[in-house]
């Protein structure tokens, strides 16, 4: 695959160029824009490496939500980086070079990319590839691994998201916040009608991603982010005041917790039915159906939590008073 090799090189060269530009630019807004491009290119790289699920996540989070949050942060600070940090400092440079050299040295020990003899390909992967079809019965092995074999990990990750957002709630929920109603971009008829037309389709697409994780790339996490993106678009165009009337804070908080709770409940129920924690095989009469049901439910939990977290975060950032 000479073509794909070429693409790798070109995309990596782009990444280097962008990084260099980001370092050089003093204009932080321009830097944020370039970060957006950076994430677009990284996702292309993931694609080339056939890691579609990862690329999906990068697309949803890196290109969309994180740009929005960074811009919002920028609104709270000044738009230019401090020239004081422009000088060349010797000590940090040395530290960075040393660590970089160590990391590069470390890669010498790693197996070549795509080497079939690499430990990661001989340890668990063959078992997943050969048996997940019988044991879990889902075409997308990534979903089998994340949702079933490693559902402990995924549960942990969901809990991390949950905990993180609680931290943000505590930090950013300022009860003395000044509420200013903004009519936003609604006065723009073109944008308004475009948004009206797009939002329902984006939401249905998110749910498609949610329920088709068994067959193709996708699943709860990506679906949650896409669903949240639809609400973000609505908020941007129709204003925060109107959006908050529909997506009330209290309900969002309940959903944030509810998703994790759903995930945990599936685990507890499978214990109650005589299996191990999160062992879905006991959920139905035959193990494969049980696995299906279990993965469906936990993905739903992940989706609910992620969507609610993203929307809450966005609202919190937007509501934040300008300092």
């Amino acid at each position: 695959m000479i073509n794909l090799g070429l693409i790798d090189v070109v995309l990596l060269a782009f990444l280097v160029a962008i990084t260099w530009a980001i370092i050089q630019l003093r204009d932080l807004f321009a830097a944020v824009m370039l970060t957006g491009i950076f994430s677009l290119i990284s996702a292309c790289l993931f694609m080339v490496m056939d890691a579609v699920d990862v690329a999906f996540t990068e697309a949803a989070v890196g290109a969309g939500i994180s740009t929005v949050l960074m811009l919002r942060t920028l609104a709270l600070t000044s738009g230019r980086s401090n020239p004081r940090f422009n000088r060349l400092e010797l000590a940090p440079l040395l530290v960075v070079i040393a660590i970089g050299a160590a990391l590069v040295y470390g890669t010498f020990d790693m197996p070549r990319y795509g080497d079939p003899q690499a430990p990661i390909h001989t340890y668990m992967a063959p078992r997943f590839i050969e048996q997940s079809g019988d044991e879990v019965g889902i075409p997308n092995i990534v979903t089998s691994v994340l949702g079933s074999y490693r559902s402990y990990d995924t549960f942990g990750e969901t809990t991390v998201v949950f905990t993180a957002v609680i931290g943000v709630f505590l930090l950013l929920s300022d009860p003395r916040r000044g509420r200013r109603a903004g009519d936003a971009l609604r006065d723009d008829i073109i944008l308004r009608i475009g948004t009206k037309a797009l939002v329902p389709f984006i939401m249905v697409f998110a749910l498609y991603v949610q329920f088709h994780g068994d067959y193709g790339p996708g699943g709860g996490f990506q679906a949650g982010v896409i669903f949240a993106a639809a609400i973000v678009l609505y908020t941007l165009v129709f204003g925060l005041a109107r959006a908050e009337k529909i997506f009330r804070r209290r309900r969002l908080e309940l959903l944030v917790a509810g998703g994790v709770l759903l995930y945990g409940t599936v685990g507890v129920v499978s214990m109650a039915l005589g299996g191990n924690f999160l062992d879905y095989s006991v959920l139905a009469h035959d193990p494969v159906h049980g696995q299906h049901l279990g993965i469906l439910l936990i993905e739903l939990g992940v989706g609910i939590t992620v969507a609610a977290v993203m929307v809450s975060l966005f609202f919190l950032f937007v509501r934040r008073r300008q300092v």
Partner: protein
Amino acid sequence: MFAAAMVAILVSMAMLLVRAVKGPTVFDRILSVNSFGTKTVLLIAVLGFLAGRPAFLDLALVYALMNFISTIAVLKFTRFGSLAGERSLAGEHSRPTEPQAAET
């Protein structure tokens, strides 16, 4: 033939990158990023066919989607200084309703 399309898209991406770095106005940068996003969508679609996995199209759609939403978000940021659009709508930033350079 896919390869030719791919190379063309990559080259045009490089040119957009130059525009994004050069600016000079914020709008030029936003425009470049937006156009870059569209090119990414095309690249992913072509890549999907090259790798024989048209399922990539789901991803292409997500890209198109996120590209649009982040462009609108960025616009709100530059127009009102904030995503909620609190600054008075007819405030300091709006220009007189009569365009200055009109046709004669």
